[in-house]
C-alpha cells in the first residue's frame, strides 16, 4: 500500500494533466523582472526584500496558505486577506498585480532539474532501505516527525536535497526566521527530553521527541534548557547509500511535485 501511494506520486510527475489556464501563461521574462521590481516596492516592507518573510509571511514556498491557485494569488493582491495584516493593493493595476503574483509564485517554484537517477527505483529505496516513512509523510503515508515531503520537489532542488541527506544540520529550513525542527534539550525536575521545538514563548515550550510524543514545559519549572543550533535529529545518510541508491532516492524526492 505504501509503495502504491509512492508510485502514484511518481506517476503524477510523468502524466501531464490538462490544467485550467493560469493568468501567468502569457507572461514574458521581462514581466517577471517587472514583477520583482514591483514586489520590492510594494511588498518587501513586510515580506522582506527577497520574499523570505519579516512581519509578513515567508513567500518562498510552494504552497501559500491563502493562495491555492494562481487566480487566488492575484485575487489576494487586489482584495487583501480579511482578518490579517495583508491589505489590498488597488494601487496596482491588473497587469501589475499579475506580474507581482507571478514573481511571488516563482519564489516557491524551482524549475525541474535533470534527475540523476531513477525515481521509480528511488521510491522503493525511500520506503525500504531508507526507512524514511518512519519520520516523514508522503501523500498521507508515514509518520509526521520530520517535515512532510509530499511536495518537497516544488521547493527544494537537487543540491539542497542532497545536502539534507548527507548533512542534515546544514539544511535547516526556517519559518519567519525560526529554525524549523530546532533541536532542544529540556530538563525539569521529573524528566529530560531531547526533541524538536514545536512552539515557544516567554513562559512555555512544547517539544516533540523522536517518537512523536509531545512534551509541554513551563519555563519557570525548568532545570535546564538548551537550544542546539546547526544540529539535526535526522541521521546522516551519506554513508548509508551507494551512489546509485542516493541518485535514485534524490530523483524520487525531486519528483514529488504538486503539478507538472
Amino acid at each position, binding site marked *: 500500500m505504501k509503495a502504491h501511494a509512492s508510485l502514484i506520486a511518481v506517476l503524477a510527475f510523468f502524466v501531464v494533466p490538462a490544467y485550467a489556464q493560469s493568468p501567468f501563461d502569457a507572461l514574458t521574462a521581462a514581466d517577471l523582472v517587472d514583477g520583482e521590481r514591483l514586489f*520590492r*516596492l*510594494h511588498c*518587501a*516592507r513586510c515580506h*522582506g*526584500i*527577497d520574499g*523570505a*518573510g*519579516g*512581519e509578513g509571511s515567508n513567500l518562498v514556498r510552494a504552497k501559500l496558505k491563502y493562495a491555492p491557485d494562481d487566480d487566488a494569488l492575484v485575487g489576494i493582491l487586489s*482584495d*487583501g*486577506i*480579511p*482578518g*490579517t*495584516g*495583508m*491589505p*489590498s493593493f*488597488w*494601487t496596482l493595476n491588473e497587469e501589475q498585480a499579475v506580474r507581482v503574483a507571478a514573481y511571488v509564485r516563482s519564489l516557491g517554484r524551482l524549475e525541474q532539474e535533470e534527475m540523476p537517477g531513477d525515481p521509480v527505483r528511488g521510491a522503493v529505496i525511500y520506503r525500504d532501505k531508507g526507512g524514511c516513512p518512519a519520520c516523514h509523510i508522503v501523500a498521507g503515508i508515514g509518520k509526521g516527525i520530520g517535515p512532510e515531503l509530499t511536495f518537497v520537489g516544488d521547493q527544494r532542488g537537487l543540491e539542497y536535497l542532497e545536502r539534507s541527506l548527507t548533512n542534515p544540520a546544514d539544511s535547516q529550513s*526556517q*519559518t*519567519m*526566521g*525560526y*529554525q524549523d525542527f*530546532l533541536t532542544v534539550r529540556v530538563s525539569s525536575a521529573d524528566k529530560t527530553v531531547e526533541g524538536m521545538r514545536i512552539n*515557544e*514563548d*516567554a*513562559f512555555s515550550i512544547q517539544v516533540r521527541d523522536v517518537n512523536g510524543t509531545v512534551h509541554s514545559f513551563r519555563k*519557570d519549572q525548568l532545570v535546564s534548557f538548551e*537550544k542546539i*543550533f546547526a544540529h539535526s535529529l535526522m541521521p546522516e545518510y551519506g554513508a548509508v547509500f551507494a551512489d546509485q541508491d542516493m541518485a535514485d532516492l534524490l530523483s524520487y524526492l525531486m519528483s514529488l511535485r504538486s503539478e507538472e
Partner: protein
Amino acid sequence: MKKLTLILLALLIESANAQVGFDRLVGAAGDGDNWLTYSGTYRSERFSPLEQINTTNVRNLKVIWAYQMQPSTQAGSGLVETTPIVVDGIMYLTEPPSTVTALDARTGKTIWTWSPDLTDDVLNIGFPRVNRGVAVLDDAVYVGTLDAHLVSLDAATGAVRWDIEVAKNETGFALTLAPLAIDGKIIVGVSGAEAGVRGFVDAYDSATGERLWRFHTIPAPGDPGSETWRGEAWQTGGGSTWLTGSYDPDLKLLYWTVGNPSPDWNGDVRPGDNLYSCSLIALNPDTGELQWHFQFTPHDTHDWDANQIPILLDAEFNEKERKIVALANRNAFFYLLDRETGEFLHGNEYSKQTWASGLDERGRPIVLPGTEPTYEGNLIWPSLQGATNWFSPSYNPLTQQFFVATRLMGSVYYKADVEYEEGQPFLGGGEQALSGDDAAGAIRALDVLTGKQQWEFMLHSPPWAGVMATAGGLVFGGSNEGNVFALDASTGKALWNFQTGGAVRTNPMGFAVDGNQRIVSTGGRTLFVFGLE
C-alpha cells in the same frame, strides 16, 4: 411650568457637559478609577495609581469579561492596536479599521457602535489598517479615521456631531492615532510619509470641527528650518505625526513627535538634516507656533520615526529642579530633554545599535561611516521597526523607573532608486530583518535620570505591545506569542501570565468599577478585562 422646563434643560446641559471637562483631564493622574486619555494622563506616564492588584495577589488575576471584535469587511484590518478609554463605567474603544464602540465597563456589553463609510480602496501606504483609540472631551468622543477624517460622536449614543476631512486620503494621508483633547481643542497628526506626504499637526475646535491652526512639520522655503532641505524635496518630505502627543497645561506646551523624512531609505534625493523629521516639537496650543524642537536622527535613512510617546516628569537633575521630557527613541537611544527649552540633558543607548558611536554634548548622534542603506544591503541594528516603536513605554513616578518594550533585532537595509508619484509608495529601498531565532524582545526597566538598565525580562520575539506600570509594584505587558503578563517592577520577575490565544499588539491600561481594579489587554481580536473578583 416654563421655569421648571428651564431648570430641567439647565440640568440636562450641565450633566451632558460635565462628563469629561478639561479640568478633569488635567487632574486625570488622581483619578485611577478612570482612564481618560490615550496614555492615561497628559504626562503620558501610562501609570495606574491603583494598588488593589499588587505583587502579593496578582497570581490570582482572572478574566472578568472579554469582548470579541467583529471581523471587518475591510481587507487588511486584522490588527488591533487600540487603547480603550474608560469614563464613569463606560469604555470607549476602536476596532480596526476605524470603528468606535462603547461598552459597559462592568460587563462588556455593547452600548453603541459606529463605523465610518470607508470604501475598500482607502489608501494606507506603509502601515496596516489600524486605529489606536479615541479622545473624550465634555460629552463627545473623537476619532480619526483611515480616510483622514476627524469625527465627533455623541458620547451617549454614537451619533455624529460633526465630520471633517483633515487631508486627502488619495495622496496618502490617514489618521490612525488617538486624538488628544485639550481645552476646547482636538489635536491630531497624520500618517503618510511612506507616500511622500508633507506632514502636519492640526488643532480643531471641539464644538464645531473648525480648524484653528496647522503646523507643517516640513518647513516651506523661507521658513525656519528650510535651510535643512535642498530643492523641491520638502514638498514630499514626509514627517508624519502619527502618534498621540503629550501636554503640559502649566507651561501651555504641546509635545508632538515627528516621523521619518521621505523617501525612507534613499537619502540622496533629500540632502540635509531634513527638519523637523525624526524630532520632538513643542507647540503653542493656541497658535500652533513652534517653541522649540529637538531632532533625534538628522537625515534619517532607516525609517527611524520619532513617533514614540514623550513622557513628562519633574525631577532634580544635576542638582537642579527640572521639567523634563523623557523619550526612548526608535533609533535605540534614550533621551532626557528640558521640556521648557528643549535643551539636551542626557542620552544613552538602551538597546543594541551599530549606527552611531554615541551622542555629542548637544545630543546629536555621532554617526559611524558606512551605516546607510546600500544597493547591495547593509546590516545595521536596530531594524527598520526600531529598538522600540509606537507602543507605549510607562513611567512610575513613585520609583522614577522608566519601562520600555524593546525590540532586539537588526536588518539588512537596501537602497533603491525612487521617483515620486502621488498616492504611490515613496520608499527608495527596503529591508530584510533578522527575525526568528536571530531576534528577541525584552521589557527593560531604566532609572529614568541615568538611563541605566535595572533589569530586563526577555521575550521570545520583538514585541508590538506596550507596558503599563501600577502603584501595586507591577508592570503589565504582552507578547506576539499571545501572553499577557505581570512583572515585579523591582526585579523584573514574572508573577503572572495568561495565554490569550492571539498576538498582543496593544498597550495595557487600567481602571476600576464598583471598587474593583481592572487590567485591560487584547489578544488577537479579543479584548480581555482582568481582575481579582
